[in-house]
């Protein structure tokens, strides 16, 4: 996830340029003010303290199999989609088989360890997972 941290930094730097607190609606109002059509200054249309969608990334929980999980999962998707599951050992086993077929990169001799790690951390009785609250996006 060192790479992820680097991306987060990059994303935050870009954030200042892309969706800074002076968001588009505020800029529009400034334009109108300049042309004399409006004197109101609008606030950002979202809380600028919220992270940008897709930039706040969690880590897998600590454990001997964390490195295996990192290598197997994170080339294609973030930790979120794993961490929100609450699956039985049988269901996690089926997921591992599917993902291995789709190219998830983990050594065959560490499959059982990875399976145990997923069941322990993301089994049916694990604590509820909460989504990350982010800014609106996609306009």
């Amino acid at each position, binding site marked *: 996830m060192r*790479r*992820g941290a680097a*991306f*987060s930094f*990059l*994303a935050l730097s*870009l954030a200042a340029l*892309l*969706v800074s607190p002076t968001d*588009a*609606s505020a*800029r*529009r109002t400034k*334009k*109108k003010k300049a042309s004399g059509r409006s004197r109101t200054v609008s*606030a*950002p*249309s*979202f*809380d600028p303290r*919220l992270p*940008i*969608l*897709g*930039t*706040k*990334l*969690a880590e897998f929980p600590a454990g001997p199999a964390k490195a295996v999980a990192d290598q197997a999962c994170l*080339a*294609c*998707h*973030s*930790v*979120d*989609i794993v961490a*929100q*599951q*609450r*699956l*039985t050992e049988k*269901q996690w086993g*089926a*997921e591992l088989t599917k993902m291995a*077929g*789709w*190219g*998830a990169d983990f050594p065959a001799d560490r499959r059982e360890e990875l399976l145990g790690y997923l069941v322990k951390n993301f089994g*049916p009785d694990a604590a509820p*997972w909460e*989504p*990350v*609250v*982010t*800014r*609106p*996006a*996609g*306009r």
Partner: protein
Amino acid sequence: MKNTPENVTDVLSIDRRRFLALAGAAALVPGAALAALTDSIPVARRRMLQRNGYAIDAETPLDALTTYVTPNDLFFVRHHWNPQYAGHKGWSLTVDGEVERPLRITAQDLRRLPRTTVTCVLQCAGNGRGLFQPFVPGVQWKYGAVGNARWTGVRVRDLLEQAGMKAGGRHLHTFGSDKPPVRTPPFHRSVEIEKVLADAIVADEMNGEPLPALHGGPARLVVPGWAGEHWTKWLERLSVAPEAQKGFYMETAYRYPKVLGAPGVPVPPAETRPVTELFVKSNVTEVPARARVGAPAMLRGFAFSGTPDVGRVEVSDDDGQSWQPADLDPQHDPWAWRLWSFRWSPKAAGRMTLHVRATDSAGTVQPREGAWNPSGYLYNGWHSASIEVEA
């Protein structure tokens, strides 16, 4: 193709550039274009719930789904993989397969063809998956992988007429530009030709703005009343064929049991059918946390179905023994949602649970429980609200 946050910021940056261009245009033509950029949702509610950082999956909090048209920036996002985004300049749409004259249509061509606007619901097939017990794998959507938008573009029927569809065409295969990583199967889908000819469109505008890249821009398929997996994003090819598309996302995923079984029990593929029409459903979006005996409390929400309209929405304060009608907002379009409101007069103090159910224009009533199915599709159990009533 890498699925990384870099791609995410690429996509956001493309949307921002296009938005600024549009905002510039809007400044020259105040009115309709500008109105599309504003909405009545308070700043504190304007946020998204990220369920996957990459590829992006994010749902809208219910308290932001209070308007007839869901703003683009609050509309749920569902990506299987990060898109390979071509941008408008290099983009084209190929129409081929069982046609006399294959077409290659640019973004400019699309704007010159006869245009139509459809206002309708887009819901992810898996919306509500996170509410099923026992748990099923997949994005654990709760309530907000749904929205209602004005989609503008060109009827697929017109494109197929122009291309001269042959008599043997029964299915429209759809291809987007998002490419799966490693050995993940491609997201190849098809839609039955009857539905395509009836009302599908290739949309390049969403709520009066260029279709955002996050939502499939430059263009996506719109299939009113059918679940989101048919609404192919980053559309680049439509191909007419005698048979339905094959592959994981047709033959394994997006399938529903022909006959519902016991919760938790797997269903063999041969005993499933494709997920198509949405199920009738209503949700509560605004409800006071507290109320007082004798003082009316207002509840609001939306309701929709895979049939063209909603017939009624009802509220029960006695665990479904009796139902009182909610008021339906007059604004509606076929396959759009109906906003509703209900004025409830609490009769006794204590913690009260209100249930809401919708009935669609075909008379189908929303059930108490969402029907468990192995992939967690189309949850539509009664939505409930809890209110503390003071004496």
